[in-house]
């Protein structure tokens, strides 16, 4: 069975078709991993169009919902086959800061790229990041802040993560007042200037870990 139709259903956010085509693929004996890859391909495509300002967030969300529809059907088979997301990412808005739209967008993009995303919410104190990192053993930790007066909380969080011996996880920071220079200054591993680039940044961090975008 051709999986291109399923990829297309994700790209266009056709939830009903995504569910039906996923079931058809399973019934036709297609490997769960291959089906998953076709879903990710669809999300990658719309993610790239989003990055080029060709589509808006709602169109991304519709695609993400279509993928979710497929995943409800596919996930039990993936679990049974021992196939799990390869990477886990923690994300949260740092202590004192309540802004979460940017953080939510990054979480959505990471989920679409098949990261297992643990969203800690907003106003997250360093000790909660540390506890969650110990529990979930993430490869990526994303810190968000929108206020100049909460930017120092990013440093506190990074310091506590490192003090707790959790420096294996790569730390990505982002938010309106954040810069690459600030990322360098506080010891973050990378800076994502916007939600669209967060996937590329995270993938590079868990892949070669040595590219131009890294801090």
């Amino acid at each position: 069975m051709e999986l291109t139709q399923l990829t297309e259903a994700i790209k266009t956010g056709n939830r009903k078709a995504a569910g039906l085509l996923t079931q058809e693929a399973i019934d036709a004996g297609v490997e769960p991993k291959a089906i998953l890859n076709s879903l990710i391909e669809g999300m990658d495509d719309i993610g790239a169009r989003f990055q080029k300002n060709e589509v808006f967030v709602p169109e991304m969300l519709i695609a993400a919902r279509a993928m979710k529809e497929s995943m409800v059907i596919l996930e039990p088979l993936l679990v049974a086959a021992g196939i799990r997301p390869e990477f886990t990412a923690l994300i949260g808005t740092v202590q004192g800061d309540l802004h979460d739209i940017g953080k939510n967008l990054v979480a959505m993009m990471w989920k679409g790229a098949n990261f297992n995303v643990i969203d800690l919410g907003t106003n997250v104190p360093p000790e909660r990041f540390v506890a969650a990192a110990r529990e979930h053993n993430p490869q990526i930790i994303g810190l968000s802040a929108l206020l100049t007066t909460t930017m120092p909380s990013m440093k506190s969080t990074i310091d506590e993560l490192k003090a707790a011996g959790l420096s294996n996880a790569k730390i990505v920071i982002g938010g309106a007042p954040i810069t690459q220079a600030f990322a360098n200054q506080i010891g973050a591993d990378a800076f994502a200037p916007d939600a669209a680039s967060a996937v590329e940044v995270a993938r590079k961090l868990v892949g070669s870990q040595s590219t131009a975008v890294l801090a």
Partner: protein
Amino acid sequence: MVLGGGLVYPELNFTLPTMFVNGSTMPDVAAQYREMITGALKRASELEVPGLVVEFETLPPMTENPDWGMEIAQILLDELHEASVKHGLKSVFRMTPNDTREMVRPPVMRSGELWDNMIELFDRSAAAGAELLSIESVGGKEVNDEALQSCDIGQVIFALSVMGVRDMRFLWTHIAEIAERNHVHAAGDTACGFANTAMVLAEQKLIPRVFAAVVRSVSAVRSLVAYECGAVGPGKDCGYENVILKAITGFPMAMEGKTAACAHLSPVGNVAAAACDTWSNESVQNVKLLGGMAPTCYMEQLAYDVRLFNEANADGPEAAAMLKKWLVRSDIGLDPQALILAPASAVKIAESIVSAPNHYRAAVAAGMTALNLITDAYNDGSLKVAPREVCWLDTIKEALEELPEDESTFIASMMDAVNTTTFRPQDYDLT
């Protein structure tokens, strides 16, 4: 000072550079605020401004700890008093505590320590001499954030005209009571967390600008409730919907535009000035620029802006109308939000709001009026709309037309559609 009497006054707001606010940093925090206010007042005196509004928009720890908020408020009040005595500088102090109720999720909107501390800061600052009380309140934001990301106009209307209106009634009844008891003014609120969020998302190309413009129009219904509860203006600066509220209430309004570029990008830099009573810089960090510390530099920019407005006004109705025309025309062809915030559009939106039987229908009417204004201007070629946004005109129209006539039917359908775990329905009388 007479606010709303024809003379436009500068309204200055400033904030800290990157630093923590806690018990141990409070001496540094106080020193920063003292530096900001003394520099700005010196420049205001040198430039002979006709008067000045200074807004102190606290940072969340200062509302959570009213003693800290009051320590800074008192510094600012003392400096304003000294500038009055030494230089004859007239001023008004606007106090804007944070709406810290959202520090817990889901927010507890009507009780608890966060509420108590916020109300205490309003009360103590009013007693100390804050003549204007404002806030950027957040009731309904729990649903609005997600609705913006989905561009779901029905959910936006639920957030603003059902949740937002109910919370505003509760909150502003309290603020108006505090103002009355302390013989100061309940000034006004803003849809900052709602319509400004939409505007910024649109500027980042995350959602369509036409959608953000419709959200702005709808947001006026929520902000209006402050005035229904006793506020008298000037409405808070970042409420770009204030021009619509001015058309309804006649109260003076603070506005911000090009001179708030230090805080954020907006597509309404000139048109926002067309009906202002105070002209604001929104907020600027205390960082060093070539001309001095940033709050001082922005004081100067505001001073020259209002000089021009007041000179046009003093030159007579024709000159004032000419300046207003230029402020409007330079923006409205380039962005749908600018178009709907032009005074002529604002009057049409205001008419649709006051003609509606309730807040819900007013929100739908405001949205539809804004959409029609945008569509007509696009069709006659007077407004640029990006090609990828054009389809959204029909999408939003269809969504608005599908909304039920009856508010209770609408609420029932929305309670099924939105994520009800993000808010406490009892805080919005939705149980």
